[in-house]
């Protein structure tokens, strides 16, 4: 605030005409869209075209890659094979179910189908790093199992070359290692959807339920 008063003091003689001009300009900008930003728009379009033209080249290489869905969870980037992903869903209502383990926060209703939700953060005993959105659900399935995984944000789909994937990771231990397919150079953790779907722990719980 003292800055403001100083400003007030320094700008004691306000040039009201200038102010009016500026307000008028803003009003015109609002009414007629970005008249002045045409050049900027053009610039943006140029940048976009460039990026698009650049990305077309790696798509030419078809051999030895997997298709994954990339998502954020607890400030880390994960990926899961698109083959096992039925869809991504914006979670609207989560209904908690009593007596379930802590990694099962509840169930959701997706267009009439009841699906259970798993918090892999809890499941993997990852340390808590503050509250996150956790309002996205990635629904994975195979022939036997179907459930949703909570995610903070779904980044999109991409291709990952096999050559990029490092099989073993010395930092990962215990349970997590079972469900990992590998890690890329960019620290993208690729989950093993098959392993998760066929996990007995989850089934046992279900069975016990």
């Amino acid at each position: 605030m003292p800055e403001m008063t100083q400003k007030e003091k320094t700008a004691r003689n306000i040039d009201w005409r200038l102010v009016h001009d500026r307000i008028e300009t803003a009003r015109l900008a609002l009414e007629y869209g970005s008249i002045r930003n045409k050049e900027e728009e053009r610039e943006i379009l140029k940048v976009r075209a460039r990026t698009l033209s650049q990305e077309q080249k790696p798509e030419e290489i078809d051999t030895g890659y997997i298709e994954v869905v990339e998502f954020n969870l607890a400030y880390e980037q994960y990926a899961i094979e698109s083959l096992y992903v039925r869809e991504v869903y914006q979670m609207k209502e989560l209904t908690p179910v009593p007596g379930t383990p802590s990694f099962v926060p509840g169930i959701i209703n997706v267009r009439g189908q009841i699906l259970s939700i798993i918090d892999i953060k809890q499941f993997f005993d990852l340390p808590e790093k503050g509250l996150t959105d956790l309002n996205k659900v990635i629904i994975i399935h195979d022939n036997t199992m179907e459930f949703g995984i909570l995610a903070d944000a779904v980044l999109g789909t991409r291709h990952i070359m096999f050559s990029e994937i490092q099989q073993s990771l010395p930092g990962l231990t215990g349970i997590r290692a079972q469900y990992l397919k590998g890690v890329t150079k960019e620290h993208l953790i690729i989950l093993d959807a098959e392993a998760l779907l066929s996990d007995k722990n989850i089934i046992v719980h279900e069975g016990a339920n």
Partner: protein
Amino acid sequence: MKGSKAGLLWSILLGGILPLILAFILKYLMPEWKWLNEPFHSVLEALGLFAGLFLAVLLLFQEERGEDTSHYIWISSALIGMGILDGFHASVRPGNNFVWLHSMAVLTGGFLFSMMWINLSSAKSRTARGIITFAVLVAVIVGTLSLVVADKLPAMIVEGLFTFSASVINVSGGFLFVVAAIFFLIRYRNTARTEEIMFVFFCLLNGSAGLLFPFGDPWKAEWWLWHLLRLIAYFIVLGYIFSVFRDLTERKKIAAELANLLQEVKETVRVLATSSSEITATVAELASTAAQAATAVNETTTTMEEVKQTAVLSNQKARSVSDSAQRTLQVSQDGKKSLEQTIEGMSHIRGQMESIAETVVRLSEQSQAIGETVATVNDIAEQSNLLAVNAAIEAAKAGEQGKGFAVVAQEIKSLAEQSKRATAQVRTILSDVQKGINSAVIVTEQGSKAVEAGVKQAAVSGDAIRMLADNIIEATQAATQIAASSQQQLAGMDQVAQAMESIQQASVQNVAGTRQVETAAQNLAELGQKLKQLLERYEA
């Protein structure tokens, strides 16, 4: 020569010549006329006796007159002796001793009168008494012896005529009387007193009677004339001396009164001298005091002039104060007006501030609505993104046929992400806007408060200015009053100055008057001194 010749001549004429002429006229006119009347003669002689004695006593008392009266003793003794013998003469029957006694009386009287030539300078008490006693004794003895041894006396009258011895005795007596008359004449020449003339007359008459004795006969006209003349002389002298005596007593009384008066005058003069010297001292003091007063008045006048100038100055000051107070009053009224306008402007600003605050609040609400809209857009973008992901998944499942679809899905996803970035930008801008609004609200609030404080301050200032204006009005009135009263003071000062001028003049006159009084008092003192000296000289 003091005595007048006329008096002298008259006395000689009346005492000597006229009786002589009368006697001769009577002798030759009525030579045969004879009147023998013893009682009448006795009465005449007795009257002469009493007159003489009375005269003697009077003369003795005359001694107290303090003048040259030593000869009165002789006169008195002569009158007494003569009187006594005349008394004897009156008491006897006509005969030898009858004439004898008369002759002795004339002789004694003449003798004692002529004795006046012997000057008795200190002839007072004792000697005088001795002479008188001697005269009385001699007269009584002679008289008594004359009665006792009448036969042994020399013959005085024979056959109705006087004898030679009788004539001798009488002529001697008459001669002695004339001698006495000469004494008185000489005295008269020296003193010119009527009394001396009287005695000249008396002595001449007696002397004439004595000298003419041999030519007379008893009981005849000229004889009676002499008796009568002698008696008249007695009474004339007696009357005169009596009148003199009376004058003397009167004069003594007057002298006593005069002495008293003199005493009083002396006392008065003494008092006058003392008083006049006191007056002189007082007047001298008064003169110095008056001079001091004059000096003081002079100083006061000077001081008055200074005070007057000060008053003039203070009057000017008061007037200028009054004028400046008037101007100040005008200024304060202007200040009051402009303050009222300021207050009005302040309340106007307050209203505008309120409207600004409202506008800002509305702006805030609108930006919130924008935020909500942006959130919706963001949500839509999110969902679009998810849909794009799902489409991409589906395209991947479709394999080679889904490739084109995958591109479209990618494009949609890109758009959704751009939308999200745009909304993020909008949110950032909105956040800034919100911050700005908050600042604006706070500033507006502060402004509003400042305006409120300003209004209050202006109200306080208004009160102050109003009070100031009131005070100035009072001050203006006071200054006006001061100016008026200083004007009056100035007028009063003028009057006082005039009064001081008058006082000064009066004091100058006072000083002059005091000087005059001083001189007068000194004169008075000198006069008193002189009077005192005069009186002292008189006393001495």
